């Protein structure tokens, strides 16, 4: 049962990391006292917004313009922000909507993406055995490459979950989809990523 102890430790460590990240990112305002200003809320998120914009645009100059546009739009709409909600999810949604209406975003949206039909696309246990799934994930370059190859909608949900450490309900807000769809999309994304990695490792043998 040694492995079970280690799993709990690993998951616990990951959860702590997630909570640490949340303290920086998930800023909410209390309605009882004067809330933080837009600048106070947005300033710590600039690196995250830029990083996510880079992933969306795949171009640094466009990403910077996108973040600038996001700041401008969110500043104008700040009065509509509800203090008890998550500011990070709110501004990421504005970023994403700004991207979707950009030239690059419109071009990207022309790519057909099979939406999340769990009954069609998920097979619960037809994949490789757990032992086969244990991969040598220490080769970060390979993981980077696999993430690049992932379909943009799948990559986006993974970035929000694993990099931005958002909760499912916040991801649902950003992507404007139900929480159930977030869950199935994350599941598909991880499976697809794992398959890409397995393909690479089999080919490298």
């Amino acid at each position: 049962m040694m492995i079970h102890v280690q799993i709990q430790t690993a998951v616990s460590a990951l959860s702590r990391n997630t909570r640490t990240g949340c303290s920086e990112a998930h800023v909410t305002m209390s309605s009882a006292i004067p809330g933080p200003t837009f600048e106070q809320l947005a300033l710590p998120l600039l690196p995250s917004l830029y990083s996510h914009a880079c992933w969306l645009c795949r171009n640094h100059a466009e990403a910077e313009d996108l973040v600038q546009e996001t700041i401008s739009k969110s500043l104008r709409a700040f009065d509509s922000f509800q203090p008890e909600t998550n500011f990070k999810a709110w501004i990421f949604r504005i970023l994403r909507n700004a991207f979707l209406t950009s030239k690059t975003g419109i071009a990207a949206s022309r790519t057909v993406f099979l939406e999340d039909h769990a009954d069609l696309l998920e097979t619960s246990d037809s994949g490789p055995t757990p032992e086969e799934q244990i991969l040598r994930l220490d080769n970060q370059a390979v993981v980077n490459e696999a993430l690049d190859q992932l379909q943009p909608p799948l990559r986006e949900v993974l970035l929000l979950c694993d990099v931005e450490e958002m909760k499912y309900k916040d991801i649902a807000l950003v992507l404007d989809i139900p929480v159930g769809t977030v869950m199935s999309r994350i599941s598909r994304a991880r499976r697809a990523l794992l398959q890409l990695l397995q393909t690479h490792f089999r080919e490298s043998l």
Partner: protein
Amino acid sequence: MTPAVQDNHLQPEELNAFIDGEPLTPGGRDIRQHLEACHRCAWRAVTATQLKAATARAGQRFSPSPEVLARLTASLRTPQNQEPQQSTPHAVIRRASFRPAAAWWALAAAVLLVVSLASLVEVRQARQSNAVVAELLDQHLAAIAGSAAPQVISSDRHTVKPWFQGRLPFSFNLPEPNTLPPDTILRGADLVYLEDHPAALLLFNIHKHQVSVFVTQSAGGFTVAPRATRSGFAVRSATAAELRLTAVSDVNPTELEALLRSLAAVQ
């Protein structure tokens, strides 16, 4: 494993929600209890946890340069200069006015900008340092979980050290067994990658505690605080002869430091 457990493995959504720290659905089963009873799902949880950590590292690829950060911060600070829709982002900087009457305001704004940038750089550095510690811990957990056996299983330093020839762009020394701290034994070694740099992973036992020592080049590699603690694991780092030695374990930190000292002494 009981047949009931065997036939009722966790669904992918259940497993993902568990590793993502999402609350269980009302009426849902106890995931931890299932993992304790189901070996297969336990392995899946280990893989999924490692994949999540690897994705997080890969996703942090893009970070703004100081110049970009300065421009973005400036756009936060000068909202009145932003004309909706028409303004181009970089124009915000170019429009700065330097009339004498506004000089003091400009100076104050510049000071604020520098302070903000410094704090942002600190946040970014802290985030990167945290990411390195998380990666070290992740590698240590993977090593002690036995998900992949080390490529060298030996307590003989004359077996372990030569194995790295041609695999690492640097070399290092291992101490004689009798110069190691009491009850400390070399168990084996592996080649791993930290922040895309190759590293020698040396596996030790101190009493019954497992220890991972990562040997990397100190120049051009990652940086980590000399002393850190995460999730109950102590992380200790030292440099010796252009090498960085970083140890991770749940053993008493004093004993961990003693091991590092004995390794550093022979470099």
